[in-house]
């Protein structure tokens, strides 16, 4: 009886499995916080250069990891738990980006200023410019594309692999002919590089969580909130970039 059940389950699961063929990609993220100070226009040239000379050479970057699950139809990105190294471990902030390429929708869960937000909206592909530059990332030949985030004031450089025909990428980045394997923000302020690309026959865990706590926002509302926060912080001479996901 058990065997029959198992077979029955397998049969039911089969069509699902076929659809779930895709990738599990691990991204290593390094955030060079020292470079951020150059953006704070209320600091004087002297203060900025003092920060660079005393801390710049020692900034090895804040390291973290994220995981992207992707199929032809959907993708989901989440942060990974920091590995124990004997030191202090901070709380993992809640973050998830889910995209449905078939329906053309996205759901992002993000913690900001101590509050949870759920951004649900249609997928709007960023405007990418494809450049004539190539490099190798983990054995995949990648091309360069650039874009701009006017809300956070970021110049985004993405490297995508034509060999991996998924129009997805880490965090908020997607919309290129191949999977984005590296993202560089403002010439190295933040770098996210794929460290592991696994091809799997069935991607597990690629579904929206049943419960998502947080205030619902549209992309436009989220952008407006960010703009206001950044401009208020700069006016109040506080570094806004500690409190937002850069």
């Amino acid at each position, binding site marked *: 009886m058990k065997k029959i059940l198992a077979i029955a389950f397998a049969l039911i699961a089969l069509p699902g499995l076929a659809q779930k063929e895709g990738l599990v990609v691990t991204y290593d993220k390094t955030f060079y916080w020292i470079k951020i100070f150059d953006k704070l226009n209320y600091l004087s040239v002297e203060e900025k250069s003092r920060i660079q000379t005393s801390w710049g050479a020692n900034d090895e970057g804040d390291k973290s990891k994220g995981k992207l699950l992707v199929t032809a139809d959907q993708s989901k990105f989440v942060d990974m738990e920091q590995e124990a190294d004997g*030191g202090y471990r901070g709380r993992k902030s809640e973050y998830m980006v889910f995209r449905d390429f078939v329906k053309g929708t996205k759901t992002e869960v993000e913690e900001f200023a101590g509050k949870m937000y759920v951004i649900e909206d249609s997928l709007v592909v960023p405007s990418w410019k494809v450049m004539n530059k190539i490099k190798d990332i983990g054995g995949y030949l990648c091309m360069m594309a650039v874009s701009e985030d006017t809300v956070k004031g970021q110049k985004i450089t993405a490297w995508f692999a034509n060999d991996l025909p998924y129009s997805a990428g880490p965090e908020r980045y997607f919309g290129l002919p191949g999977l984005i394997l590296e993202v560089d923000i403002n010439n190295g302020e933040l770098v996210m590089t794929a460290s592991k690309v696994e091809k799997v026959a069935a991607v597990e865990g690629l579904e929206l969580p049943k419960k998502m706590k947080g205030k619902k926002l549209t992309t436009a509302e989220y952008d407006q909130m960010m703009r206001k926060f950044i401009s208020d912080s700069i006016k109040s001479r506080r570094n806004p970039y500690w409190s937002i996901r850069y």
Partner: protein
Amino acid sequence: MKKTLLLLFLCLNVLFVKAQTAARFNLKGSTVDTAGAPLPESTVMLLTPKDSTLVNFARTSKDGTFEFKNLKRASYLIKVTYVGYLPYQKEINPKDAETIDLGKISMAAMDQNLYEVVIKTFRAPLSIKGDTIEYDPKAFKVPPGASVEDLIRRLPGLQVDQDGTIKAQGETVKRVTVDGKRFFGDDTKAATKNLPAEAISKVQVFNEKTEQSRITGVDDGKHEKTLNLELKDSHKKGGFGKATAGIGTEKRLEGKVNYNRFNDKNQFSIIGLGNNTNQGGMSWDDYQDFKGSQSFNWGDDGDFGFGGGMRYISFGGDEEESLTIQAGRGAQNRGFNKNWAGGANYNFDTKKTKFNTSYYYNQTSQDLDATSRQTNFLTNSAFTKLDTNGRRNFNENHRGSLRFEKNLDSLNTLIVLSNMRIGNGTSNYFSHQEYFRGDQDTTQLSNMSDQRNISDFNSFALGNTAIFRHKFKKKGRNFAVSVAYNVNNSTGKVIQRSTNQFFRTSQTVADSVLRINQTNDTRSLRNQVKGSLLFMEPFAKKFVMESFYNFSLKSDDVDRDVFDVGEGGQTRNVNLSRYYTNKSTYNRVGTGVRYSHNGLNIATGLAVQQIQLDGKFAIDQGQPFTNRIDRKFFNFTPNISLNFDLKQNRYLYGGYQVGVSEPNIRDLQPIVDNSNPLYIRVGNPNLSPTTNHSINLGYNHFNPGNFTQMFFGAYYNYYKDQVIYSQIVDENLVTTTMATNISGGKSFNLYGNYGFPIVKTKSNFNVNASYNRGTNLTNINNELNRTTNNGYNMGFRLDYTPSDKFTIYTNANWNITDTKYSIMSGQNQKIINTNYGAEMNVRLPKDIYFNSRFSYNSYVNDRYGFDQKMPILNLSVYKTMLKSKKGEIRLSAFDLFNKNRGISQSAYQNFVSQEQVRTLARYFMLSFTYNMRGVAHSVRRKGFGY
């Protein structure tokens, strides 16, 4: 009618359909290799020709075909890529065609050699623009100081012959340009041999028309290989510096110069400063500009203990004369100080090796004139001391430091530190003291004492530490070992003279007079050898076990020779002279477990430690030892710590620690020190170490959304075997103190702070309050006195920052301390200190700024009618000038009302005291600053916003 309508409708329909076909078009084609075989799954991108914006993309099917339907009618740049092939691109213009068939797009294989070498080996960004191949030199490692030729040798597809001739894809490079310009005519080697590789940002190889065809304008079809070198925008090197000089009334002068020169690996800096305006030494900003990348170093502390995994920045000791440069001590508000300082620093900085060396000299001359009043409470009686004293101190130090850090490989790090200080100083102290019976300074004169001490000292101290850290392959498993050797050698000579008159029967003629005239030569040498081990082992993903061992052997060798100076010369005072040696051995071993997961960090641990003291005392060096102290102390010290990163920017932290501190060697010496005949110290060889139990708990919260912040917390300390100074006061009001152990002293503190914007970005309000309670125990004439302090503190801050032209900052602070003495319950003291402050900044036209700072302090103790008020107003006006605002001229007025004094009051143990010190008051100053990085001014206060 119907017919016409139908016709019209039809016409419109036709028009509409026509318009639609005109607006949209289809594009198709297929990709093949040079042999004509289809290339399935190749990527076809449509970009705008203007700026390469991606409009659409597709993949070719199995037969290599692709098709875009209903494209907006516009020009496109079609770009086709296929792994191992050179990208293909072409601009297409649909004009009015309905469908464009690009036919077979033939893709050329990328030079396999080039592809393999560039892409696989070097992982180098390589860009291809038309026939231009561009290399990024960052990806090709060349040794420091290498020339461009060395760099080119490493670039795939390029060759350099024996004679320096460059070949690109087998063809000889005929021309080398720098930033597109010819470099030394046609000699292609001039640039490549002479330019440093590190100055180059890009290397480009392309075909250029021949000189002939460029002159004639007729393309003869011949091309020459050209190599272009692009230079870096800012080849990272530079320098900055700042100089300030000021001249004022009352002979006030100040000046400061610093200069820092750096390139990507080396930093060199110098600083020099001098002032007689109580400005002290280096500020933190000066320190950072001086030490550069070596300002702050993590993990330089070799004394591993609980929390050994936490590496932090250590700044030497808190003591006045530490081995390392002390910065940020701020202004000196006591007396008149003259300061001089200067030094040089050099850093060498690479990812693998860091080296730092510095020299720093500082000197301070201080004139300090003070008056104080102190009432001491005894069992049902009291006495009051009035003291008028002066000090002329001089102090100078030379400090040298070396630091070397080497990342031997990714798992092993070695740090070697050596710091040295050579210091000397002189001090000249004179004091007139009057002792009265009772708690007023009028009732009955008891003693009068005139003292004069002249001292002179030299010291040498050296601290060396080596730390080796090893990370195992298993993440989180770490090992560290440290060894240290410290030396402290000092000699001092003190001449002590005093005349002490005792009045019992008369108020004018002394009943007895005691004169002291002594010289005291002390020579002391301390050697210390230390070592520590640390091992950390992670387990069960969320836990780390840490174990450590510390060892220290400290040996002291002190020779103290006291001579009584009489008319017949010097005679050795055998009661006060001592030679002693002391060996203190310290061993500690501890282990703990830390749990850390998702923001919750809890650590618990236990250590056992043993301190062994072995001291020997003789009347003089070479004499037999008369006393011996041989004591062992054994303690368990538990440790608990909590750090909880809660949601919504809330943090909870706390802990419980037990600390053991060994008794001071001076307190252990079995001698009677009567160099001050009114205050005699007696040593106690039976002292035990003090055990301190401390508990703290705190919470803080910051809301970045609405900028409110809050923190509060509490801490508690309990002392076991605390070393206190018991007092016996005789009928002549001579106090004899002896260090004794006592248990039961404790302190408790509760604090809180809340800040929020009244108008976001324009006005902030902050309130803070704290309460503290302390219990201090002392034996007074063999009776236990319990002094209880209750302190209440409250403050407000209101900032008003409406614009870039005007700001106001105000604050108010109240501090009330109630003190009760158990031996004299009628003598409760209430000390009230108050401070009000206001600061205004105005930006006037033409880069002129105005700053005014007012503070009002009041110090009140009603019981003694002590009521001092001190209004201080500082004003300054300044203007930025010169090109790029590099200059500033400033006129300042300090203490416009001429009221500045150093005032302090306290109630402690069995006394209450007030002191006033003469200090720098009103003066005016004109100063000029030149800053290579520009003088930036703002009406906003500094210090926030990081």
